[in-house]
């Protein structure tokens, strides 16, 4: 391949964001769960994977599976505690969960090496110069899987059920749907999938530091979904392309920015994310794809 490796690095990150935003689309857009703890599940996968692989010498694939299982288990326990609370409590509790994960990444130095960082993490396939490409392709396949699921879900009886629970949970219970069980299962599985993408992300990052699991990840995903349109299964994809891909890929890689100003780019980016989010919510609350009914 003629493309330099940093292109695959950036593309892989963007794909991970597409997956996270699509998973959030299913949780929030389809089912109505306000998950502000995305980075917590993703981070459990990321660090769980890194710790198993490097501190305990577990091979790549079992580490991937176990790290995903760890995030899934955390989602199950958290969901079991909070999913029948009102949505504002769910929001705060999931945010708190993610903060706990980030704190643990800092404090538990015996596992995570704390702020010194944990590294270095190898690629899933050792293809020499094409290892980045290999990782990219694996993430691409996984992302397509998530997108496919999200699109199919809309046409499946299960998607109709989730929409019903989102619209009116008490009414759904009144017609015999065990809403809490469905919410718990769906939240557990989709949050576990966020953990899976966290584990895959470990290879993109190579070196794990606690700042990677900052709440900015969660909010970037939310901003992308709101901008793209939360009602459409492709809203996450479109939103990530319109926000993260523009800044982290197009501008960062291809726009010549004078050296003195490059340090301001991430700050301006987050500021503009905030502004975009406000404008979208005020003037186009259903996002870019919102008008298509």
């Amino acid at each position, binding site marked *: 391949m003629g493309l330099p490796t940093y292109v695959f690095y950036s593309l892989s990150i963007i794909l991970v964001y597409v997956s996270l935003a699509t998973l959030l689309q299913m949780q929030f857009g389809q089912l109505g769960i306000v998950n502000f703890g995305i980075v917590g599940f993703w981070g459990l996968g990321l660090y769980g994977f890194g710790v198993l692989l490097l501190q305990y010498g577990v091979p790549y694939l079992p580490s991937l599976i176990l790290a995903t299982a760890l995030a899934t288990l955390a989602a199950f326990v958290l969901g079991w505690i909070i999913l029948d609370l009102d949505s504002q409590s769910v929001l705060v509790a999931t945010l708190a969960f993610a903060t706990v994960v980030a704190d643990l990444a800092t404090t538990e130095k015996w596992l995570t090496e704390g702020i010194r960082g944990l590294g270095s993490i190898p690629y899933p396939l050792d293809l020499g110069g094409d290892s980045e490409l290999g990782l990219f392709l694996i993430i691409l396949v996984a992302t397509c899987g998530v997108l496919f699921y999200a699109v199919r*879900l809309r046409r*499946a009886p299960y998607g109709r059920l989730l929409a019903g629970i989102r619209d009116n949970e008490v009414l759904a*219970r*009144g017609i*015999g*749907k065990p809403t809490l069980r469905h919410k718990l299962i769906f939240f557990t599985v989709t949050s576990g999938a966020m953990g899976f993408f966290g584990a895959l992300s470990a290879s993109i990052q190579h070196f794990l530091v606690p700042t990677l699991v900052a709440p900015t990840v969660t909010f970037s995903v939310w901003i992308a979904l709101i901008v793209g349109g939360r009602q459409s299964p492709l809203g996450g994809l479109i939103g990530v392309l319109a926000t993260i891909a523009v800044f982290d890929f197009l501008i960062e890689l291809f726009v010549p920015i004078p050296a003195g100003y490059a340090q301001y780019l991430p700050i301006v980016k987050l500021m503009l994310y905030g502004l975009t989010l406000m404008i979208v919510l005020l003037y186009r609350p259903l996002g870019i794809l919102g008008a298509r009914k």
Partner: protein
Amino acid sequence: MQEPKIQLSNVRKAYGGRTVVDVENLALGRHGIEGLIGPNGAGKSTLMSLITHKVNLDHGSIVFNAGTEGVVLSEWSLDEIARLGVVRTNQIIQDFESLSIVDSILLSLAPPRYEKLYSLFSDEQMQREMRPAVEEYLSYFQFSDPAGHALSAGEKKLLDIIRCLALKPKFLLMDEPTTGLHQDQTDRVLELIRRLTRDDGMSVLIIEHDLDVIWNACEHVHFMAEGQIMTQGSPAEIRGNSTVEIKYLGEPGA
């Protein structure tokens, strides 16, 4: 007369110290269609909420299918009770805002085997299976645009009733079902539930302020006031009852 389907004993519910429901003994479902009438604030809707366990009992027991194998309803949740066959139509209009009329009925009809996380390709088969039932409801009750959303209050109310009937309930609680319906829609609803009670053995309890509905449709009427069942009997007996006369029928505007 048949065995009662639901037996309430010493059922009490209070909100903030004020007793709303205090029913010593009440047998429901001895007749096909029964009425529950009484002045505003008598506790009728709360009684229905207690039966479907939408709100918790303070005291007492509610047993479904009493006599054969009794199920204590207060030990089950709202959705489990609906699956047992005790279903309630809503007094205040409730809807799934994003679902079309057809989708809303399909959701109610969908059996659990289709509603699985991994069941992504089953919709066609389910639609094929359920289509006749959906069509039957749609041709019986006319909607302006079945593929679209329920628009008027009346359509939403009808849809709510259809969703409940689609569950093939054994005991249907109807909380002011005809409010917002046209006369011909009301007649159709009553006609259908009469048929279902006759052919399928369904029992119905209706709360209604439109007393013509009660006198026409019900075989038996319970009169409730101040949280208690004051009296019960045939429509003719209740109409002539002096307590009912004083506490309810004499009310201006009733």
